[in-house]
């Protein structure tokens, strides 16, 4: 299995209905190697969601090039599995049927797809909840259902947009452990988009810091913490050092973003 993602010179501009066009991404280039865990971090408005949509194939009209193992992405791609930030489980399907969804649309027979879905449900630790509806699950369980559903698609690259953003910090740390455990089993390429510094350091091999508008790559920081890693790593001095380092890069960008947002409200 391979899964090398290459992003070269990607730009995307939104013209917000005649007003000054917003340059969301400006010549972003990045290579994510097969089996690597990379996080992209930045303040709101740094274009990380746009980048997510470009790689996920949800925005087809961008300039530059995104390739997976040499094939250009235009439209959704079989090799990229996406986990969304928002509530994305189907409320009318049980956990089992949610996870089996991608297999169902691929035309897999019922028994085969249910067996396979059960495997992934077990992998994310939701055994016993196969016949529950999302409304009967907690926020963390719903996101794990969404993760299992994407895993069942068996993509070479997992692309996640703040999958644990809506959860509390402790749940998030524990789900981070779970995610690393799954990753060590399945060994896909992981690309995580986040605004949470702890999360980025806890999970990644590399953290990519993006700048506020126009979205550019400001710095790439290698995280040389030992693997396998557990959430206990956050107590170490080295961890704190990385967090401090990233915050130094981010602080200026975040305050520019905040000032911009407040200015816009004042102008209204």
């Amino acid at each position, binding site marked *: 299995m391979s899964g090398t993602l290459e992003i070269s010179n990607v730009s995307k501009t939104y013209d917000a209905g005649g007003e000054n066009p917003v340059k969301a991404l400006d010549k972003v280039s990045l290579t994510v190697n097969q089996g690597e865990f990379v996080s992209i971090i930045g303040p709101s408005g740094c274009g990380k969601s746009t980048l997510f949509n470009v790689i996920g194939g949800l925005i087809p009209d961008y300039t530059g090039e995104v390739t997976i193992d040499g094939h250009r992405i*235009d439209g959704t791609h079989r090799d990229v599995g996406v986990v969304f930030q928002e509530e994305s489980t189907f409320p009318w399907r049980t956990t089992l049927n949610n996870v089996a969804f991608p297999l169902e649309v691929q035309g897999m027979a019922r028994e085969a797809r249910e067996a396979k879905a059960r495997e992934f449900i077990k992998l994310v630790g939701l055994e016993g909840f196969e016949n529950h509806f999302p409304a009967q699950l907690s926020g963390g369980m719903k996101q794990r259902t969404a993760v299992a559903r994407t895993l069942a698609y068996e993509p070479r690259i997992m692309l996640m947009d703040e999958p644990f953003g809506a959860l509390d910090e402790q749940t998030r740390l524990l789900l981070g452990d779970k995610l690393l455990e799954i990753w060590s089993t399945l060994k896909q390429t992981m690309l995580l988009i986040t605004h949470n510094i702890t999360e980025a350091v806890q999970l990644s091999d590399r953290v990519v810091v993006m700048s506020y508008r126009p979205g550019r790559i400001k710095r790439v920081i290698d995280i040389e913490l030992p693997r396998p890693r557990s959430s206990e790593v956050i107590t170490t001095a080295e961890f704190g050092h990385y967090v401090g380092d990233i915050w130094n890069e981010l602080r200026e960008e975040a305050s520019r973003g905040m000032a911009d947002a407040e200015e816009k409200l004042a102008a209204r």
Partner: protein
Amino acid sequence: MAQTGVIGTVSGLRPRITVNTIRITTIVVLLVLWEVLAAVGRSGLLYKDVVPSSIQIGLAIIHEIFDPAFYHHLGITLAEHVVGFTIGSTIAVTVGIAMGANPFFRKMIEPYLNGIGSTPKIIFLPILFLLFGTGIESKMAKGALSAFFPVVFSTTLGMMLISPVLLRVGQTFSLTRRQMVSKIYMPSMVNPIITGLRLGMAIAVIGILVAEIKFSNGGLGYRIAEYYDQFAIASMYALIIIIFALAAAANVAMTVLQDRLNIKQGGSATRNAGLGAST
């Protein structure tokens, strides 16, 4: 790329057709259909004299608007509506607040209110006729009865949906009971109560008109029934069209009013006007 619902409408293919084109075409098509029906009626094939031509109806509308008797009956209906609606909605707001404030009371009477609320109110007309006679009093009572239910339901719901955080904020500032009502409850309730009042107003009009059609000696409903009995079909349609126009105008006015009140809180009443609130 897969076309999806958000952008997957076919409207992009015909940029020159506008909403108004469709609306005007619809009106023209309906008018033509009506004229065809009228022509068939005149030829005696079916529905003889039942479908007057649109010109006849237009003339009848003009005639109706200049007929003092129309205003006499309009006045009767309006008076019945104002009195009935005021009584019905006042009682409803009071009961609704009591139900919202006292869970025991709410659980006690809610099943009965739901039961009667889901029954077509027209069926209580005989009781109102027995109690109040067939004059305007029974129409006022019908208006009150019709207006009561939407208002009581939305008031109760409004009471129950007040954010508990806001109530606790009030408590932490040690507001008196009176201040709680005037500073926290009332402002949070404005929207649901207005929605209920609006629906109640519309339903009360219908209730009163139907009561007038059944038994009365005045009012627009009475006039419709009278035209029907005289087989003055064109005049009857003319009157119905005028009533519809009045109802539409009142509806637009209420929407504008409600949006004005809402603007500060960022909500809008325009969407789905009058649909969602009646459940």
